[in-house]
């Protein structure tokens, strides 16, 4: 059974529609990339799945049960976390406080502690800088914190919106290798990126979204084919 199933999702803001029927599914432990040009609706798709933007039609199922129409705070509790675009860490709070916020949905103290230890193992910087104000971390460290903060909620599915935004290439490689580890631990991951190369090579399967629709599905093989990638990304004219 698919862990995340999106069917014919339509969404937008007010009278403006952004997504016109997007469908895909994600298997447990799988990684999915979503790429597309600016304004294609990638972020809206993430927000719609996480409950921040209301669906106009279609459905989202997590582990077989519907989550569409639920509030973001409830979606997290059901096992789906979104790392929003631009990281959105709380710069005025300490690193530890940011992580504590990630635990909001969890009741059990012991497993919470375990989750904290786990992400600190995965991202040592969070340990060494525990009492720093999060706003003082570097961009890459902030991204790690944002991912860790989502991870402590123990999500089955982790959505990441543009994790490479504003990061230096070496730092990006770092973040992606951490994501590999996270997937290996059993979390399914959806990554939205404008940089098609990066994700196509990384994810088991990559959707290209343009004008609010899925235009094509790529495999890591396609990443090598520059021309095909370009064409899929920008449309037939390119």
């Amino acid at each position: 059974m698919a862990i995340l199933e999106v069917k014919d999702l339509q969404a937008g803001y007010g009278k403006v529609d952004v997504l016109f029927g997007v469908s895909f599914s994600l298997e447990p432990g799988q990684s999915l990339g979503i790429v597309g040009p600016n304004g294609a609706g990638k972020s809206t798709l993430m927000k719609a799945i996480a409950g921040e933007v209301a669906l106009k039609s279609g459905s989202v199922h997590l582990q077989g049960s519907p989550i569409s129409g639920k509030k973001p705070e409830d979606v997290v509790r059901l096992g789906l976390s979104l790392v929003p675009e631009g990281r959105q860490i709380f710069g005025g709070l300490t690193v530890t406080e940011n992580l504590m916020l990630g635990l909001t949905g969890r009741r059990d103290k012991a497993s919470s502690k375990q989750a904290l230890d786990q992400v600190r193992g995965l991202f040592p910087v969070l340990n060494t800088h525990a009492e720093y104000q999060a706003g003082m971390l570097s961009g890459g460290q902030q991204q790690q914190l944002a991912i860790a903060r989502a991870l402590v909620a123990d999500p089955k599915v982790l959505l990441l919106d543009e994790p490479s935004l504003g990061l230096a290439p070496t730092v990006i490689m770092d973040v992606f290798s951490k994501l590999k580890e996270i997937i290996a631990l059993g979390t399914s991951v959806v990554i939205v990126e404008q940089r098609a190369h990066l994700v196509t090579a990384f994810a088991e399967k990559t959707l290209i979204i343009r004008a609010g629709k899925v235009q094509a599905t790529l495999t890591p093989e396609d990443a090598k084919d520059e021309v095909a990638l370009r064409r899929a990304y920008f449309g037939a004219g390119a």
Partner: protein
Amino acid sequence: MQAILDAISLGGTYALAALGLGLVFGVMRLVNFAHAELITISAYVMVVTNDLPLLISFLLASLVAALLAILTELAIYRRLRGTGPAIMLIASFGLSVGLQKSYELIFGALPRSAAVAPWMTGSFEFAGLNFTISSLVTVAITIAILLAMGYLVERTTLGLQLRAAATDFKTARLLGVRSNRLIGSAFAISGILASAVGFILVVENPQVDPMFGLNITILALVGIVIGGISSLRGAALGGFIVGFILSILNTFLGNARVYAYSYLFLAVVIILLVRPGGILSKRNEMERV
């Protein structure tokens, strides 16, 4: 000496009022004019239940104020979320007037009075100086509440959520912070703070009329804006400054004390022009609100 103690005690009272307002503003960008009516209702409750032991009477007042605060959230403010601060401000203005008129229908337009905690109006001598008991008790209560609030905000999960929501509610929700519950808690706490203010005021002035809480609320609002509305610390500080200055002006202006408000308002305008984000604001950022 008494003048300084008075100023500190009045400043503290204003700080409590400002804190209640700042708390609600932080989580939903609402300037709650109707906070005045929370103060008023708790004063009414204390007057009406004056025959009961003081503590019981105060707890009842807190309960009523907290419930009223939550009720206004559920019935009105919840439905206006996302319409923008101006709309919510006007709605709270309307609610404030509406509640005043309701009090008028329930309790009458004329003041209701009762001597709440009469022992506090006495005075005593210390080191050759005269002090009123009420100002000392007020300072003690204020310090206790400010410390408790400091603990709540800085050290508890609820406080962490409040701080996070005040900077970025959207992201807080993505992390699982339950919006309705958090906003409800903020309103409840603001109601309890209002009842503390109501208690302090009703001891000083046992004449409770429908506009009882209006004055302090308006001035506390002024306080949170000049202190910096984006942080609770700024709100409390701003409230304190306004109360302190007002008290000092009252003491030292002599016959011109009637113009104390004019000077205060003038100071407010000037402070806002120099620092639109408040005294504690770090940068001259474009306003979020």
